[in-house]
């Protein structure tokens, strides 16, 4: 409960800071301090040293897995603010409020990782979504940002409606909002899962796929990711997306087998569709930002494997995937924000001008493509291995890896532009040494996790 309360309190504190303090840099430092405290509080709870306890009437339950993901999400946000804090402040006039919203999103994140009732899931999803709508439209003078925010809001509201409908149907079948609840009905002497519950969960699943931008519910993603200010795109494409997957895993694990054999068709179909749409469309993009938007759909396709396998390896894998994907994407976006030209050609010759930045971006790209020696490889590896452990058909894996090979095509265009092409990669400002240092730390982290991924899991079990 530490994460939920502390993040909410810091959100309110930042709100007050917005009119008490006038220095924009102070906001950034406050946010960094707040995130550090939040991380510390969450770690204290993870190791059962100190925690605020409320009777949540079984609405929330705190487990090692969820708390550990909290730590990942908070640490990733901390890194994100350290790396792009200056760009967050610069988006618009309401610098402090952006951090407020990020804190509130983290509150929603910690709700989703610990919900024990569908009501809390709904609250968590909404607490995440509404600040995101605002952040998407935070570049008020930019028409694209406005368009993206409106689109996101309308589509998101619709999917929220679906989610409520699903929760209502599930409630109708089970009689409570409990996560575990299984509504059964007598049928010809045997007990069957109630149709209402299946329909309800399907709706829930659809609306969460929407939030996770899994095909065929991905249509909002490219426009919103492109329209939103780049700093916030990187936040919502990584931390938020991973959180939704954690929520989905919790839900589907609690009600394993509820979809019956149909699940063996629906989910593989979704995986293939997501991978195909994300990867193939990304190939044709000229803008790096839009490419990253589609690639985030493609990466979601891989994350869906964790839902399919529903075993320990899948759970470990999704954690590793979140870390690998988040670090790499946040890193690339941090560089992208500083570029004058968002197209691939805008990166031409970056290696000659900024060797360290280019090298870091190269590591990020290699990780996203899943090349060995980077965390991205083991992230994909865990997904594939967990799926095959659960008895997935090899055809599914073959399709997945072929699309992984397709992804190499567009990821490597970035490397080609930076290293092999001549050009003047122009930046708005020269990256500072601390920025370069942070990028290098990101890259080193990815490589360390790529050699010894077990470093991450050691903390999961102890």
């Amino acid at each position, binding site marked *: 409960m530490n994460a939920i309360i502390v993040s909410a309190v810091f959100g309110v504190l930042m*709100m007050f800071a917005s009119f008490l303090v006038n220095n924009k840099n102070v906001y950034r430092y406050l946010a960094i301090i707040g995130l550090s405290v939040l991380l510390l509080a969450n770690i204290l709870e993870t190791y059962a040293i100190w925690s605020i306890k409320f009777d949540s009437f079984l609405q929330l339950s705190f487990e090692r897995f969820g708390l550990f993901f909290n730590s990942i999400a908070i640490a990733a946000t901390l890194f994100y603010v350290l790396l792009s804090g200056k760009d967050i402040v610069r988006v618009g006039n309401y610098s402090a409020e952006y951090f407020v919203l990020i804190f509130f999103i983290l509150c929603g994140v910690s709700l989703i990782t610990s919900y024990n009732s569908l009501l809390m899931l709904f609250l968590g999803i909404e607490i995440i979504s509404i600040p995101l709508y605002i952040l998407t439209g935070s570049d008020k003078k930019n028409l694209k940002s406005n368009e993206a925010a409106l689109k996101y809001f309308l589509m998101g509201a619709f999917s929220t409606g679906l989610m409520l409908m699903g929760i209502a149907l599930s409630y109708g079948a089970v009689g409570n909002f409990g996560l575990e609840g299984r509504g059964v009905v007598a*049928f010809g002497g045997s007990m069957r899962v109630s149709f209402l519950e299946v329909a309800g969960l399907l709706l829930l699943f659809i609306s969460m796929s929407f939030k996770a931008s899994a095909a065929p519910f991905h249509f909002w993603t490219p426009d919103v990711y492109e329209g939103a200010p780049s700093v916030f795109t990187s936040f919502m494409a990584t931390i938020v997306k991973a959180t939704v997957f954690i929520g989905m895993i919790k839900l589907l694990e609690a009600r394993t087998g509820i979809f*019956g054999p149909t699940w063996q068709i629906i989910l593989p179909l979704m995986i293939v569709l997501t991978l195909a749409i994300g990867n193939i469309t990304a190939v044709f993009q000229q803008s790096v930002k839009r490419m990253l938007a589609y690639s985030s759909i493609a990466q979601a396709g891989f994350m869906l494997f964790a839902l399919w396998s529903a075993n320990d390896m899948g759970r470990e894998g999704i954690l590793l995937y979140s870390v690998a994907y988040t670090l790499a994407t946040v890193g690339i976006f941090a560089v992208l924000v500083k570029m004058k030209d968002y197209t691939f050609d805008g990166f031409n010759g970056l290696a000659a001008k900024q060797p360290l930045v280019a090298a870091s971006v190269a590591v990020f790209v290699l990780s996203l493509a899943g090349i060995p020696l980077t965390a991205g490889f083991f992230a994909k590896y865990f997904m594939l291995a967990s799926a095959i452990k659960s008895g997935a058909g090899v055809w599914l894996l073959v399709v997945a890896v072929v699309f992984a090979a397709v992804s190499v095509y567009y990821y490597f265009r970035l490397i080609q532009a930076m290293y092999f092409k001549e050009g003047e990669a122009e930046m708005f400002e020269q990256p500072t040494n601390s920025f370069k240092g942070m990028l290098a730390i990101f890259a080193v982290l990815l490589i360390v996790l790529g050699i010894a991924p077990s470093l991450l899991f050691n903390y999961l079990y102890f």
Partner: protein
Amino acid sequence: MLWTNFLMNVSTASNTAVDYFPIGIQLIFAVGFVATMIGVSALIGPKRQTSDKLQSFESGIESVGNARQPMAIKYFLVAILFVLFDVEVIFFYPYAINFRDLGWNGFFAVLMFVSLFLAGFIYIIKKGALKWED
């Protein structure tokens, strides 16, 4: 094949679905009736279009100007804030009824709720959301 199984599960596996059968029938009839009547009247009814008929109806008075006039955005802000605090007040009714039963625990919960709202209230005042003139 599995997909059809799923569909069959719907109709056979759960008698809840069977319970809804009459409602479904009624739904079909209701929609069908309305659709038929509108369709038939549109098909066989007499049609005579004049410019008067196509004008928007304003109690017999000639229509003037455009209905979509720009309004100050502040109206919306105030309206939304009003809704927020209105909802806050609504929560006091059930609390007032259960005031004694909920005891100190309930009191602290409500106190927290109100203080959060208070924080928000201070925030909007300080931010000048309620200031009418710039």
